[in-house]
């Protein structure tokens, strides 16, 4: 099945039709998507600030990670689920915009950033756990994360303007 025919198939599923035509479905899912930013983005920024060594300096890095991560991943899961639901409402229109594709690529990059951090500086966390000045690798991961999220969120907002009018 080609991508175009998959999007067309998705567009015609009863679920997609309900999302599109229901008065309440989209506003509710969109509200959850946007308000979960307070959890997801807020905690991601706190974590990045600790990685940069500018906030929560006296707290162990491993403790900050351990305390924030479960909620951060929970928030991320909610964002993904609600994001997919919003996409289902009109997959063809979403996919037709460049900004949507750019957002998806940046999401993958943000995921890679986490994986690279965990495989490198994150593995040797015991060495700098209590140090208020963090290693360069940690700072780099934080800056990459912050920049990517700023652009991902901007792109998300931009999709609403880029979508063809209904």
């Amino acid at each position, binding site marked *: 099945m080609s991508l175009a025919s998959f999007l067309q198939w998705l567009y015609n599923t009863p679920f997609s039709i309900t999302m599109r035509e229901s008065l309440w479905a989209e506003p509710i899912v969109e*509200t959850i998507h946007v308000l979960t930013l307070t*959890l997801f983005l807020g905690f991601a*920024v706190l974590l990045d600030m600790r990685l940069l060594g500018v906030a929560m300096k006296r*707290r162990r890095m491993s403790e900050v990670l351990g305390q924030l991560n479960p909620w951060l991943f929970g928030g991320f899961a909610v964002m993904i689920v609600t994001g997919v639901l919003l996409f289902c409402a009109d997959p063809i229109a979403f996919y037709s915009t460049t900004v949507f594709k750019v957002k998806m690529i940046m999401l993958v990059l943000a995921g890679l950033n986490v994986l690279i951090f965990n495989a490198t500086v994150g593995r040797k966390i015991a060495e700098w756990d209590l140090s208020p000045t963090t290693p360069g690798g940690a700072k780099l991961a934080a800056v990459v994360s912050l920049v990517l999220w700023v652009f991902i969120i901007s792109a998300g907002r931009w999709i609403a303007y880029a979508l063809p009018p209904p």
Partner: protein
Amino acid sequence: MWLRSLLIAFCEWCNNSFWGHGIRNSTWLFPFVEIFHLLALGVLGGTILIVNLRLMGLRFKNEPVSELARDVRPWMLGSLAVMLLSGFLLFSTEAVKMYGNWAFRGKMLFLLAAVIYTFTVHRKVVMADQSRLAPAVRVVVAIISLLLWTGVGLGGRALGYVTTSVGSVSSLLP
């Protein structure tokens, strides 16, 4: 009523201000300011959430509440400032219309309550010696804070969907 005329006069002043005009007549300025509003929402929400989760004993249990609150305070105040400023700019593009929007009115009332609550009751409990407070008090104080701020957020989402206006404000438009 004097309050009504004062508010309408204020809305008209915002509407006619150079920034109101400028953002309204630009294609990219409105989304640009909106993105700052959204980014600051994340930071503000995150700092409020983490302090309340600590108050409820759900996160950072080994740290005193006051210390965590002090750590995130600059970020909370900074993001609140960005939210208020960007929010005011967005409001100025259609201030008179917003005056009649019930969701906007609700949002402003929740915002007023949330800000007052955060800097009085909430702050006092956060900074207090925790051994002298019953856990139930902390949980209730945290939940009220979360409810008030959620009200602000929901009002913000709703005001874009509301098209009907309260009263006959539209008749005041030139």
